Every structure is written in structure tokens, then in C-alpha cells.
């Protein structure tokens, strides 16, 4: 009996303590949720941003700011960009006593890492612009207003501003563009040759990642296929149908059959450049160092070429996006976080980023700088962004694009798609891209 009573008491004590935990936990959660909802919805981001300008003599703030960025930005070997910039920012604001905490999160992972638990995520983080829709949906990113928004608009090209805007609101301070272009061996191709893919294929071996859906659309978009109208109109859907798409599929069937074409999968392109069996590849700035090492003095980088479809020259179009600094609406010191985001995306920070890690800047003034403009990689990336790319749509339905496009690439490489069934296969791809089913 005694034992049972004891057990009962213990059990009830446990339940009580658990319940205690639970209730206190929920209340705090609710209150923070309420305050953040109030503050973030419209006011804070904008007012704080204005405050920073209005109050020249800043009020004293003690804050702990968590910052997430890729690990290269935090490594000694690569110049420690992120901590250096944060310290400089703190030095510029002597009245703010800021403690920085750093976390590792590559730009493309922001979607997964921040949305997992926005309340425990970083206050300021770097993200790739295609993550925006998910971040907004999970209340993981704040609108920027006032002076910060003006700064973004005044220092970037319209295309870059659009890439971080949703419904007219700006959500991040862009610091680089994100796209792919062409690397080639200058001893094989002349500057004239690299303007047309088919000319190149006659002279040397070209490797293209046809089985990667981030690349294959270059051909389709080149012949008038569209993704969500201008990229922002979800209702317009994906238009990879009709004769224009079939003609491209037919072209790709021939391309795959060309002995001078190598499909770039599992690093085949880069390893081919190393041993000389491939003379041109399509990739982005992340491979710049490896390609330079492989090609040495013959290194060349240029915007995308055209391809010849039934006698007509068609321009290839890459997907382009940007990487930007975002602010978490659940952050306690909005004012500081917004100011830091703006600082990390400023011309000064972009310049340091370029010098330390070759991150191509997107600030318009900085791009005009002769030392930056002379870099082949910068020129290639910016030419691509400005002329031979479309903004990668980040509407939710874009998620249906990737699978079918990749399947098409694989089927082309396997030889499952032939001239006979090209029309049928293209139509099937278009149908799946426009349906919500898997």
C-alpha cells in the first residue's frame, strides 16, 4: 500500500512538473509569436530601418546576433570574411554592444535550415533567392523597408532587385549573382567560335550537363518556351509544348549523337578538362578555381553561346538567381539585424568578398570598377546574368519542373528519345511539368 502511494505521489509529481514545463513554455512561445507577428507584419522592419538613419546618435543596445553563412566565409584560410565584416560593423556602431554567434549554413540550405525552426534560426543569414517562397511561408524572413530597401534598389540592377522581391516587397540584400556560363580552352576555340555551340562542336569536344534540370532548359527557353510567363506569373504555367519544344528535343537527339558531345554528369566535364579530352564545359563560379588550375593559361570564360536550330541561331538561356542576406523576423533586435544585413551586402563588404573568395559582386558601382571588370569570370557571369539568362522562377509550382526536365535529359542520353517519338515525349514532359502530381 505504502509503495503504491509513493508511486502515485511520484507519478503525479512528474506529471505536474511536466505540465508546468509545458504551460510556461507555451505561454512564452505565444507571447513571442504575438509580438513578432505584430512587429514583423508591417511595422518593425520598416520603422527600424528608418530609425537607423533617423537616429544618428544611436541609442545604446546590447545584443547577441546569430549569423549564418557558408563555412568558407568563416575559415581562416579564405580570409574569414564573415567574422571580419561583423567586427567592422560593430566598430562602426560604437554604441551597440554586439556579441556575434556564427553558424554554418550554405546559401542554398537556408530553405531547409531556417524553416526547420525559424524561432531558433539565425537573426541574419545568407540565402539563395529561390528559397524565398519557402522562407516567407514559414515566417523565416522579414520584409525590408525604408532606407535598406532604397539602398538595395539604388545599388543593384532591376533584375537583381526583382530576384529578391515578392509582390513588390524586398526580402534581402543581394550580394552576388548565381548562374552558370561557359568555360573553354582558348587553345582550341577562338573568340569567334565560342559564340555558337555548333561551331564549337566541329572544332572540339563540348561537355554539357544535359541530365541536370538546372541546365537543360537553356535550349528550350532559347526557342521560345517559357516558365511562368515572365517568371513571376504562377497562373501562366510552364509552356514546353508544341512545335517549338519538339524542335528543341529533335535538336538534342542529334546533339547527343554527336561524337564531340559529352554529357557532363558525376564530374565528367571537369575531369575531361584536366586530361584534355574535353575542351569546354558549362558551370558556375564555384568551379572557377578548378578550371583555372586545369586549363592554366588557356583559361577562357564567356557567356552562353547560341545554337543553330534548323538554320536559325538561337540563344541559350541559363537560370539565374542571386544570393542575398536575409533577416529573421523572430529576431530580438531588428534594428541591429537589419543594419548588419545591409552592411554585409554593401559595396565595401562585396569588395572584400570578391578579393578574399572571388565571389562575383553585384553592386553596380563595384562592377564598374576596372579591377573587378577585368576578371574574365566576373565578366562572363555578369554578361550571362544580363544577357543570356532568365530569372529562375521561385513560384511554388516551379517545384514541378525539376523532375520531368531531368527525366527528359536522362531519356535523351539513354537513347529512349528518338526523332520518331520526340513529339510524344516532349508533350508528356510538358504535361507532367504542369500537373501537381508526382
Amino acid at each position, binding site marked *: 500500500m505504502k509503495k503504491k502511494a509513493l508511486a502515485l505521489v511520484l507519478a503525479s509529481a512528474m506529471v505536474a512538473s511536466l505540465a508546468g514545463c509545458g504551460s510556461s513554455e507555451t505561454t512564452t512561445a505565444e507571447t513571442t509569436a504575438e509580438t513578432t507577428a505584430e512587429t514583423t507584419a508591417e511595422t518593425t522592419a520598416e520603422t527600424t530601418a528608418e530609425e537607423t538613419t533617423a537616429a544618428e546618435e544611436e541609442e545604446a543596445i546590447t545584443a547577441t546576433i546569430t549569423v*549564418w553563412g557558408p563555412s568558407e566565409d568563416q575559415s581562416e584560410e579564405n580570409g574569414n570574411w564573415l567574422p571580419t565584416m561583423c567586427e567592422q560593423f560593430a566598430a562602426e556602431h560604437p554604441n551597440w554592444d554586439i556579441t556575434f554567434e556564427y553558424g554554418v549554413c550554405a546559401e542554398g540550405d537556408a530553405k531547409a535550415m531556417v524553416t526547420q525552426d525559424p524561432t531558433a534560426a539565425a537573426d541574419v543569414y545568407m540565402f539563395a533567392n529561390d528559397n524565398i517562397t519557402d522562407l516567407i511561408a514559414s515566417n523565416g524572413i522579414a520584409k525590408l523597408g525604408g532606407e535598406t530597401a532604397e539602398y538595395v534598389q539604388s545599388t543593384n540592377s532591376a533584375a537583381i532587385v526583382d530576384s529578391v522581391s515578392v509582390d513588390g516587397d524586398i526580402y534581402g540584400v543581394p550580394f552576388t549573382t548565381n548562374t552558370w556560363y561557359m568555360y573553354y580552352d582558348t587553345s582550341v576555340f577562338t573568340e569567334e567560335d565560342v559564340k555558337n555551340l555548333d561551331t564549337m562542336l566541329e572544332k572540339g569536344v563540348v561537355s554539357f550537363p544535359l541530365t541536370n534540370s538546372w541546365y537543360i532548359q537553356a535550349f528550350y527557353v532559347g526557342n521560345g518556351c517559357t516558365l511562368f510567363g515572365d517568371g513571376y506569373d504562377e497562373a501562366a504555367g510552364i509552356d514546353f509544348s508544341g512545335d517549338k519544344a519538339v524542335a528543341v528535343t529533335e535538336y538534342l537527339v542529334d546533339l547527343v549523337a554527336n561524337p564531340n558531345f559529352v554529357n557532363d554528369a558525376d564530374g565528367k566535364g571537369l575531369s575531361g578538362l584536366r586530361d584534355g579530352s574535353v575542351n569546354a564545359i558549362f558551370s558556375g563560379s564555384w568551379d572557377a578555381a578548378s578550371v583555372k588550375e586545369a586549363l592554366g593559361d588557356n583559361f577562357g570564360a564567356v557567356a552562353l553561346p547560341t545554337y543553330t536550330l534548323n538554320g536559325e541561331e538561337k540563344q541559350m538561356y541559363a537560370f539565374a538567381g542571386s544570393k542575398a542576406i536575409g533577416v529573421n523576423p523572430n529576431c530580438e533586435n531588428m534594428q541591429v539585424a537589419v543594419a548588419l544585413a545591409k552592411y554585409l551586402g554593401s559595396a565595401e563588404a562585396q569588395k572584400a568578398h570578391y578579393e578574399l573568395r572571388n565571389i562575383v559582386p553585384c553592386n553596380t558601382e563595384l562592377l564598374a570598377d576596372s579591377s573587378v571588370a577585368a576578371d574574365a569570370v566576373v565578366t562572363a557571369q555578369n554578361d550571362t546574368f544580363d544577357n543570356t539568362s532568365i530569372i529562375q522562377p521561385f513560384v511554388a509550382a516551379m517545384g514541378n519542373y525539376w523532375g520531368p526536365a531531368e527525366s527528359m535529359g536522362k531519356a535523351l542520353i539513354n537513347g529512349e528519345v528518338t526523332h520518331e517519338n520526340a513529339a510524344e515525349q516532349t508533350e508528356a514532359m510538358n504535361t507532367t511539368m504542369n500537373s501537381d502530381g508526382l
Partner: protein
Amino acid sequence: MKKKETTSAKTRRFITNSIVHICLAILAAVWVFPILWVVLTSFRAEKGSYTTTFLPKSYTLDNYIKLFTDTTVLDFPQMFMNTLIIAIFSCLISTFFVLSVSYCMSRLRFKMRKPYMNMAMIIGLFPGFMSMVAVYYILKAIGLSEGSMIRVALVLVYSAGTGLGFQIAKGFFDTIPKSLDEAAYLDGATKFQVFTKVTMPLSKPIIVYTVLTSFISPWVDFIFAKVICRAESKYYTVAIGLWKMLEKEYIDNWYTCFAAGAVCISIPIAALFMFMQRYYVDGLSGAVKG
């Protein structure tokens, strides 16, 4: 006539055996090749993720050196130590849990025994990562999701639920004669003493098995480590590190190091196995004398 028959029987047996052996050899090769390939790749001198030849053209130790010295971007030694610490602790705790639960299920009789075993069976049918989001929020609520407490959280995650996997050990305990326990009780032993002094020494193979399986789980688990560590790279385990090495930005530079890392992970596991292997043989030999 008779002689001819034996020769043909002999030839026939020889042919059958040859076919069987060739089949087995092919299967063995298929099974071993991927492992061999990873080991060879870890010593490959050519850079990059793709090579045109199956076997590397030249060999080097640089991949291992880079893996353990180039720590600014991906700190493999740190990840290795994290995982080792987590593995040791969760191995100790979960081995204790599994053996205790198994002993209770096998030797004690109580009302909840059957319902508990059924429940464990059913819960065990669900994949563990089903609960990962819930687990994360519970850990966050009790303050284990940040800083050095992440290690504690991971040890908890890997060991706390292992009591449900008692079936194999229980099956083994069931084969130990009850008369041994009864003899010990007559000598005045408590239940715990019977467990530690009688059952345990007779169950070495199953203890080895339990220790090994619970030691391996932190090395191979990716999902929970990713969900719980999030951006805190100081507490990453090897699984996250190896996954990172294959990301678009790193793959070209780190691919061969990835193979080296995979080989390194097998070392502690293999060492533990070799150390414990000798206990596999013992078993019940000499348990009941006379």
C-alpha cells in the same frame, strides 16, 4: 564399365563444383568490389570526382593528410572526435538498456509483459525518423538543442529508444536454462546478481552483438544528426561531414577525401569488432557442469 562410371561421376562432381565456385567467386567479387573501389579511391592521386579508369593511375597519401590537416572549411578530425564520443556513450547506455530490458522480458513475469512486448513490436515497425521533428522540439524545450548540449542530445537520441530492440537478446536469454537462475536464487542471490553474475557471463556473443550494433548507429545516422546539429558546425558528426563533401561546391576538391573519410570511419568499428570477436566463440560452453 564400373571404372568408367566412377570417372563420369567424378567429372560430373568436378563440373558442378566448378560452376558453384565460379558463381560464388563472381558474387564475392561483386560484393567486395565497391569496398575495394572506395579504398583505392581514397589513395587516388588524380583529383576530381570522375575518372575515366576504374583503377587509379597513381597513388598518394595526400587525401588522408588533407582530411586531417585541412580543417578550416570541413573540420573532419573534430567531427570524428564528436562521433567517437557520442558513439562510446550511447554504446554504453544502450547496451545496458537493451540487456536489462531483455533480461526482464525473458526472466520476470508481470502483468504488462505481454502488452509491452506487443507494443514494442508495433512501435518498432515505424521508422525512427518519423518522430524527428517532435524529437527536435522536445530537445529544444528542455534546452538541449544548443551549444555543447547537442552532444548530450545526440547521445540521448541514439540510446534512449534502444530498449525497444530487445527481441534478439531476449531470444538468446530464453535459451539459458532457468535451472541456473534457480540454483543461484537458492544460494541467496538477488535478481540483479543473477543478471550480472549468471546471465551476463553466459551471454557474451549477444553482448558483443549489442555493443557493436549500438556503437555503429551514431556513425551511420544522418537524419537525426542533421536535424539536431543544424548550423552548429562544431558538433557535426562524420555523416554530415561526408555529406557536405559531396555538395556542389566541395565535390571536386573533396571527393577523394570523402573516400578516405569513409575508410577512416570503418577503423574504430573494425577495431571494436576485432577486440570483441574472441567472445563470440565462448557461448554456453561449460555452463552446466556435471
